[in-house]
């Protein structure tokens, strides 16, 4: 088992970061009633960990017995019936799913599942009808229509189920949904907190950590705890005992982006642009999301740039990233950005060095 899973805190009391949030959540569920919740925060901050711990707090250990199902849903959408397939993760008390996997049909999925959950509510020992929890991931990727229908279903079935929504950015969730939930912001852990966690894991694993080693990992992790633990483990596999100047392995795609960046800096010509295109294709066909490629590329390029150019490069990165969202073929827009950068940089070189 990966360390990320092995040392994932199982209960609200055991969390190392976000202790305050955990305590508040505990208070919340102790009152036997819990409003709809919306967790938001950057990736790797610990949203899912907190949600699982919260569910455990509510229902006990039985939530950890989950089964994975590939369910087929027959949805009646007015004039026709839709066949949708979606992977769900469920225990007796909760169902978890990624509604955005359903693509265009996401709104039907949300309605249908909530309806079904409302139908077979679990009955607790006192014969009282309990409620189920529906965990929806990536709500920010839901279409507007789906969010809209979510809002109505939230009201309609509020007696029979509670929703826990999870997303990266709350500004992509409509106000209507946000206002019906208790919003919980999960910030990315500070580097010191990451160091704490890494040292905790190191102790548990019985590892000798040279001083400053954990801090270096934390620094490279971009404040993502998951990322930090993963690279900690890769370091362990790579070389142990740790040495202080040990290389912390970067993700392979990041290395690749770095290569692209230095290619761009070396030569600015249509031919080079064509080579860059080939490399970007390589990343894309490995399913690295285009916006992440673009962001990383910008990051690498900015590092090597004079500050007077940075503003302009930034502007174009934002511009083409937006274009990418509107368009379909990411490569067109990434390439346009690279071409623009080349053109700016070449102009700069010519004006400085003649």
């Amino acid at each position: 088992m990966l360390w990320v899973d092995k040392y994932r805190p199982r209960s609200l009391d055991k969390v190392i970061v976000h202790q305050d949030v955990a305590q508040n959540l505990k208070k919340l569920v102790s009152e036997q009633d819990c409003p709809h919740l919306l967790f938001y925060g950057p990736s790797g901050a610990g949203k899912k960990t907190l949600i699982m711990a919260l569910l455990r707090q509510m229902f006990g250990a039985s939530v950890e017995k989950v089964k994975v199902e590939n369910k087929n849903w027959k949805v009646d959408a007015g004039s026709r019936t839709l066949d949708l397939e979606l992977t769900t993760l469920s225990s007796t008390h909760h169902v978890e799913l990624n509604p955005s996997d359903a693509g265009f049909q996401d709104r039907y999925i949300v309605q249908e599942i909530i309806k079904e959950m409302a139908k077979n509510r679990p009955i607790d020992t006192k014969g009282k009808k309990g409620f189920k929890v529906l965990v929806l991931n990536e709500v920010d990727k839901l279409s507007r229509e789906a969010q809209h229908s979510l809002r109505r279903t939230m009201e309609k079935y509020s007696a029979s189920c509670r929703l826990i929504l999870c997303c990266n950015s709350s500004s992509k969730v409509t106000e209507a949904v946000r206002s019906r939930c208790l919003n919980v912001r999960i910030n990315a852990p500070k580097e010191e907190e990451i160091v704490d966690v890494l040292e905790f894991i190191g102790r548990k694993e019985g590892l000798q950590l040279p001083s400053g080693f954990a801090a270096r990992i934390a620094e490279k992790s971009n404040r993502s705890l998951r990322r930090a633990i993963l690279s900690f483990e890769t370091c362990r596999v790579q070389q142990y005992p740790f040495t202080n100047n040990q290389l912390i392995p970067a993700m392979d795609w990041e290395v690749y982006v770095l290569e692209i960046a230095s290619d761009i800096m070396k030569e600015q010509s249509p031919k080079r642009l064509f080579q860059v295109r080939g490399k970007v294709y390589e990343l894309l066909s490995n399913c690295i999301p285009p916006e992440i490629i673009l962001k990383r590329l910008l990051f690498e390029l900015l590092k090597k740039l004079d500050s007077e150019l940075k503003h302009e490069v930034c502007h174009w990165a934002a511009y083409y990233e937006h274009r990418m969202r509107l368009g379909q073929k990411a490569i067109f827009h990434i390439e346009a950005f690279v071409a623009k950068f080349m053109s700016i940089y070449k102009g700069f070189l010519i004006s400085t060095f003649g």
Partner: protein
Amino acid sequence: MAPLLQSSQPWVEKYRPRQVKDVAHQDEVVRVLTNTLETANCPHMLFYGPPGTGKTTTALAIAHELYGPELYKSRVLELNASDDRGINVVRTKIKNFAAVAVGTQRHGNYPCPPYKIIILDEADSMTEDAQNALRRTMETYSKVTRFFFICNYISRIIEPLASRCAKFRFKPLTDEIMNDRIAYICSAEGLDLDPEALSTLSSISQGDLRRAITYLQGAARLFGSSILSTDLVTVSGVIPEEVVQALYSTCKSGNFELAEKEVSNVIAEGYPVSQIISQLFDLIVGLDDVSDEQKARIFKKMGEADKCLIDGADEYLQLLDVASNAMRALCNMPLEFPSEF
């Protein structure tokens, strides 16, 4: 609707005024409406104004006072934006409801006028087609039906509809009115709210009473009965002033690296970018040492960024772009990029 547990009933519903005369702060509206109630003769009505000022409350209160609980169900049709309100709904549902004639028999103490009421909440989100279709319906059934339109922006209601209605503007609530109401709820719920928290609450809710109550309830749930102003800020999702201030000062410094670092920090903290942009806007609007031209440059970019965010653009890049633009405006760097044509 499924019965709710008492504790989970939103306070917004729980403390909704039941009578027109209880509606806070909208004296003028209340005066006209009470008059209407006495004569039981009311025109079509259009309520507009910012959110959380009591529009829906008023409409519901009128309906209740006219018909009482028994007839309410059969006489009043409520439609809000979460319902599907395409042209088809207008054609069928509204029409069907409107077409049935009603009698004048009185029930209890209620006036029970011989018409029905259709309340269209959030009417500005209706499509233009649907609004046009409504126009005919309104005329055809005006003898037996009254329409209450509720919207935030009157400009989004087509002129023919608006001209058929008596228009009521709802003013944003003043701080005192809101504080009174909040204090009332606090005492009813047994909450302890210090004055500082109270003023924070009214500032973060910006005259929107519903929002204020929602925040209050959220805070009460998370933090128990004694609520501090920081708790309210946490619950509301409003970004602490220091964060916005820090971002502004890095922009002011003219150092791109600093700004970049601050932007990534904001993102890592998980603050919603649309929120931070709007708070940055509030901050910069009020500054005296920034010239109008500089402000205009910054705000232009903010507007663009906001649109991009709605289209789903990446938050980090957009905020960075805003910060870079603000920096260039504040440090009087040239507006155009040298290589642009």
